[in-house]
């Protein structure tokens, strides 16, 4: 058995030309609404919200916390990464309805109350780990979690565990440096 046979027999996923063709649907009944209590950046919110509203859209449109970015709205880019109970999540893939009782941290809630930057934020500036900055809030929060998870033992490990966050400006080597610097307390 060769390595290529294993791959072939194991069935590498075929290309997935995911569809987006508009399909006709029956009009839905008026959207179901739910009651949710959650904390965002330490502040408590008790909301009555339509069950279909994603955490991303709610943060951006209702709370006006626009630091969390929308890049794809389908879990492919990581621009919308936030921390939910300390874990990194794509907020476009989460409904507010799933967040009852949760603590959510967005990029606006990361710096200290006096505006003092979190070490990961400072490391991103020091290492020039962004260009346009659109992926940056997601990268920074993903990095905070990556460090907490302990996935920073080598550059290779950081690269692997930061690969859920796309950066089309391609600041990847600098992002890796920033994550390592913050992990090692060098900020």
């Amino acid at each position: 058995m060769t390595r290529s046979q294993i791959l072939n027999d194991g069935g590498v996923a075929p290309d997935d030309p995911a569809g987006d063709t508009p399909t006709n649907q029956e009009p839905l009944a008026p959207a179901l609404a739910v009651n949710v209590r959650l904390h965002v950046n330490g502040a408590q919110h008790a909301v009555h919200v339509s069950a279909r509203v994603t955490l991303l859209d709610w943060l951006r449109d209702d709370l006006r916390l626009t630091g969390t970015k929308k890049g794809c709205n389908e879990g492919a880019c990581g621009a919308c990464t936030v921390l939910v109970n300390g874990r990194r999540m794509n907020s476009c893939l989460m409904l507010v309805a799933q967040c009852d009782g949760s603590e959510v941290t967005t990029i606006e809630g990361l710096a200290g109350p006096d505006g003092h930057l979190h070490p990961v934020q400072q490391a991103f500036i020091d290492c020039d780990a962004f260009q346009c900055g659109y992926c940056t809030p997601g990268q920074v929060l993903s990095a905070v979690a990556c460090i907490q998870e302990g996935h920073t033992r080598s550059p290779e490990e950081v690269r692997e565990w930061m690969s859920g966050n796309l950066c089309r400006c391609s600041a990847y080597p600098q992002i890796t440096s920033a994550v390592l610097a913050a992990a090692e307390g060098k900020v």
Partner: protein
Amino acid sequence: MTAPTEGRAIGAPRPRIEGPLKVTGAARYSADNAPPDALHATLVGAPVCQGRIVDVDASAALAVEGVVRILTWHDLPTFGPVPPWQAAVLNLPMQSDRIQHEGEPVAIVLATDIQAAEQARTMVTVRCAPTPPVLPGQGRRNLITASEEVDESGLVEGERGAPFRIGDVDAALASSAVRVSETWIQPSRHHNFIETSGTVARWDGDLLTVWDSAQASFIVPNVIAAALQLDPGNIRVIAPHVGGGFGGKGWVWPHQILAAAAARIVDRPVKLHLGRADQYTSTGFQPLLDQFLELGATEDGRLTALRHQVSNITSMTEVYVEAATEVKDLYACPAIDVSQSVEPVTVNLPTPMRTTNEGCGLWPLESAMNELAHRLGVDPIEIRLRNHADREPTTGRAWSTKHLREAYEEGARLFGWYSRPRGGRSEGNWRIGTGMASSTMGQIRFPGNATVVLQRDGDVVVRVDIQDIGTGLQTLLAQVAAEELGTSVEAVRVEWGDSDLPSTGPMYAGSGTVANTSAVALACRDIRKQLGEHSDTDDVLDALRQTDLPQITGDGRYELPNRVPMDMYGGDSGYAIRSFGAVFAEVAVDPELGIMRMRRMVGVYDCGRVMNARTARSQMIGSLVWAWGKSALERSELDPTTARWMSKNLSSVHIPVNADISDLITIAFIDEPDPYASVTGARAMGEIGATGADAAIAEAVFDAIGVRFRELPITPKRILDALAEMGR
């Protein structure tokens, strides 16, 4: 005033002045704006690639709670003609029942919340009378001729891609000792910036405010005003931060006009933030290119002939020329023959993408040079040195400055080029190979405008209507002002991204640095000149305090020779202005699995004066990663039955992720000012790094496994198929 900066401000690796905004989420991009009462818009795209709309049934969609209005072409005003080279698309959508490409907007859903707008758009039924698609390879290739091409829409296509000949290429090829003659292909690719394009439009009576995602905000009022027939002076554009452009937000696209038109119709602000899938058909892409290239050379590797025939796809209704033939000035060659054709297919209009022109043309030229070197047993650097162009080949003009030889030398040293194992080596399951290529990008320039204000308290304000697309320009402007005025960089505040500020050129083709660092330097010199009338002290602040002025304002207008609105490659300066570089790659290929990995890359560039060593390095790393994507991963394919982009998402279109990219990317510069390119000595940096690197990577693959790839990307399947064909 704070103490003057130690040493020089220009060139220092200053952190970006907008960095704190970006790491805290405070930087505002277009879709972060939500004027009170704004409606969310979504687009319904044409389901077929050409034909006519028979009927748009929006009744079910209108029943969705929150939907306010659904607009079809019947609801829209007749747009006025929009200006070419500013508007990307001249045949605007939603003006008739005609469908020009799949995904073209046919309806606009407006709703109070994004959930309703997204749901309703899937419920609009569009019935069409389709016409069969024309796919790449099925269209008629139209040769671009020297006379201006006028297509059916009345678009005049200028000199881009016009044939160019010197010498007798046929005779030179016939008598050449060696000849390389092949066809190179690169697929269509999209920009895939992480911020999809977005426009927020709000009317206050006759005044229109637009928050936009654009690389050239100064042309947005012209285009919207032309379409909606109003005074461009009534339009304010706010566009400080743009989440990546790479050419795709350079011109004004239809959605920007549609957002403004929709807001006027419903008399409410409208936010149109394109969905990811919509992006693939709402702006452009770099077109599929087929390039035949032929080199003739003497036995010792001196070029005798270059023939380069380029063909790219374009839309059915408009001509986009991807001028890959612009590489003809890289090497000294007595006989040159280049030509260009375009093939209309049923697809949206292509547009420039990092790196247009040379980025496309160096793929075959540098690959052919590597093949020639291999054929003759000459080192790839040596063959390039033997063909070094001491003057611009097509005009005989002197170069403004050129340090390509130093770039080869420094790159070879940093890479360890001359001590590399030739013919590759093995390391576990991997085969390791190395390759190199030249990089080049002709300078494109626009005029620039800036105002600088020196205040009595020592603060300096730079004002210029330019976008931040991530190049670091705003930081450079602070550095230039600090150096010109002898202040600290910290004392300089830069205001940008609002059309109420002095209007200046675009942020594309690397022209932003040239125009705007020049304009700011000139504005500072204007301050010094004015102060010179009051005082002869060299310290501007002392001089200001000797007057009774509260502040002093300097205006800087950077003009091109003969006051043209744009020039290329030196224009009327009397010099040829072009940047150069040398790029080296080491790749690993697993011949059993077909996997390819970047091991390390080195790039050394001659781009004039380096304005900020830190942001310059990031620009070049970004470019090399971009080139890796082109070489190994990216392609946008059309479905062969529907002419629809097959994958309209970031899961199935592969772009580089962090794990694809080695940390071992070394960047260096030949940091010599170009006095003819700009006031500050800078030339462009944004594009050159992504030129030639594909050829270097393909050469490294050849070195590793002995297979020449002439079609990109070099995927695992292609590697395995090629090795199987060779019986390995």
